């Protein structure tokens, strides 16, 4: 907002420091504080809790948060609207449908070491992306409002299909899908972390590498092309990367909403528009943010029934809903103004 120099170069290291602190502290707190000694002392009573539950959970939360925030950033830049995210455009629902189907069918195969739910979630995400992309191709200058509505339609369509899959499941299966749909970070051991890692890392790598293209595309496709960006090709690559990330996350955690909208927006307010800084900021802040939400959700259990778990998706939705409305009402400074840019 102000006429200051970009803060990116100064703020990203700060975010990195914050992230390190969050990652170190998070496993030891909530719902019960564990002593640091438990980490190295194998005979300590809490050693297994820390290694099998707390640490993997923190890792999953960080990876998921980073991937969702970065995907959100890509969509916001490509569609030039802060409300356009994989969640709002139905990509998460597509991934969910893929994962739900593979759960229902009890698929257990792996391809190149990648488990069936991840693959089918990736396919679902890809399908949804194709739908959204197809819609934007159908008409040049597809109005953003119409795009968002189309996203809602795509999302509802996939959600109904998920309900149908649930309907076909027995009670336990149906309950499993339902719990998973709420967005959960409940994992045991490092296997899920390792399953998600390649998706998130490769996706992040591609996106962070394309920061210059994202800068130019956020000025508009025409300018980007005139500066030498192969926009059509870059879009395909970015859609692929986002599908990878969203698919990888959704297969394990379910559709965790709103992270991809809030985090990139806040990051832009913090570090400016330059994607060279916004990208890393989204990874760091998105990851820390979801770890923080998870700590919050675990603390809330402690005061209630110790066995009940508040899915982290509910926390992010409770934060994200009002944020979405705030953006929609346009009460944001400079960068995030929701405008219909269809007039170009």
């Amino acid at each position, binding site marked *: 907002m102000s*006429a200051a120099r970009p803060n990116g170069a100064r703020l990203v290291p700060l975010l990195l420091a914050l992230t390190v602190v969050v990652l170190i502290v998070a496993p030891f707190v909530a719902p019960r504080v564990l002593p640091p000694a438990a980490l190295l002392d194998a005979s300590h009573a809490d050693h297994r809790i820390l290694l099998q539950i707390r640490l993997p959970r923190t890792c999953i939360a960080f990876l998921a948060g980073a991937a969702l925030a970065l995907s959100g950033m890509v969509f916001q830049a490509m569609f030039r609207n802060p409300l356009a995210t994989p969640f709002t455009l139905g990509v998460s629902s597509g991934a969910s449908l893929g994962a739900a189907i593979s759960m229902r069918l009890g698929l257990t195969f792996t391809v190149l070491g990648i488990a069936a739910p991840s693959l089918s979630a990736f396919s679902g995400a890809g399908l949804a992306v194709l739908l959204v992309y197809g819609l934007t191709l159908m008409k040049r200058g597809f109005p953003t409002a119409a795009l968002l509505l189309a996203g809602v339609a795509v999302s509802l369509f996939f959600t109904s299909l998920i309900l149908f899959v649930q309907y076909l499941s027995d009670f336990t299966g149906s309950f499993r899908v339902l719990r998973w749909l709420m967005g959960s970070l409940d994992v045991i051991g490092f296997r899920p972390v390792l399953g998600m890692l390649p998706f998130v890392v490769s996706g992040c790598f591609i996106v962070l590498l394309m920061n210059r293209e994202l800068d*130019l595309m956020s000025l508009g*496709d*025409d300018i980007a092309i005139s500066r*030498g960006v192969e926009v059509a090709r870059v879009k395909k690559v970015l859609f692929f990367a986002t599908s990878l990330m969203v698919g990888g996350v959704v297969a394990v955690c379910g559709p965790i909403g709103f992270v991809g909208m809030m985090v990139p927006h806040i990051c832009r307010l913090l570090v400016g528009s330059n994607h060279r800084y916004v990208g890393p900021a989204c990874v760091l802040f998105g990851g820390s943010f979801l770890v923080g939400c998870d700590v919050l959700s675990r603390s809330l259990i402690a005061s209630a029934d110790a066995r009940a778990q508040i899915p982290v998706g509910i926390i992010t939705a409770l934060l994200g809903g009002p944020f979405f409305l705030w953006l929609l009402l346009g009460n944001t400074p400079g*960068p995030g103004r929701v405008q219909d840019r269809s007039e170009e």
Partner: protein
Amino acid sequence: MGNSCSPQTPGIALTGLTLLCDVLAMTRNARPGSAIDIEGLSFRIGRQEILKGIDLTVAAGEYVSVIGPNGAGKTTLLKCVLRILRGGEGRIRVFGRPLTAYHQHELAREVAYVPQAGGTVFPFTVHDLVLMGRYPHLSPFSLVGPEDHAAVHRALQLTGMESFEHRTLDTLSGGERQKAMIAAALAQQARILLLDEPLTFLDPHHQAEVFAILRRINTESRVTVLSVTHDVNTAVRSSTMIYALREGAAVYSGPADGILKNDVLERIYGTRFHFLDHPFGGNPVLIPEGME
């Protein structure tokens, strides 16, 4: 006419080449010397034919304007040259090489673009925006080097935007933003600059300023300019050649002062003009009838 042949910029390696091009271009239809060469370009969007067999040649170093009423296809023409719009019939060559033989980033090293003002403003700083003009000169893994910074600095200097370098775009006025966009295009260091309504949404002060900047870029930096405009008066004053489009077809092509006839203007705009003597001499000032 602002002649493009005055060899007043020593030290620029291109001068010799540009001069040669100019000489060649002066013998009319000397295609090898042309910066942009369009032959029989037709373009349709859906069923509607936007451009109908356009022939257009811009010699290197020239300032050429494309005029015509709204919806004549002027912007479409620019977008075809930039390959923002692909397909269509006919042939476009840039410096003698077919457009289709260029990679997009290669084309961007030859042709820069200042789009119509307006649209989204992401709060990039002016520096960031201008640095983005260096994109076609950078490979994915290369860092921004000293020559990139030099190009950015020079572009800011040429447009008088140095003091705005660290301001964000959302804090600038429309005129300042337009100058920033021109600086970004200049940082591309292309030999051809395409302009879409460069002066239209500016206040008189900024109109004069941007007009002067564009003239300077053309005459001193020897950048070939192809400008789409509604402003007939500035088009006549700045251009060596003018092309006029109406409903996608060329209705005039020739020297700039050739349009200063009411039958020509009526063919272009469907309206007649009054001719007023310009206070500083030269070509008269045009005022459309009904605007007296």
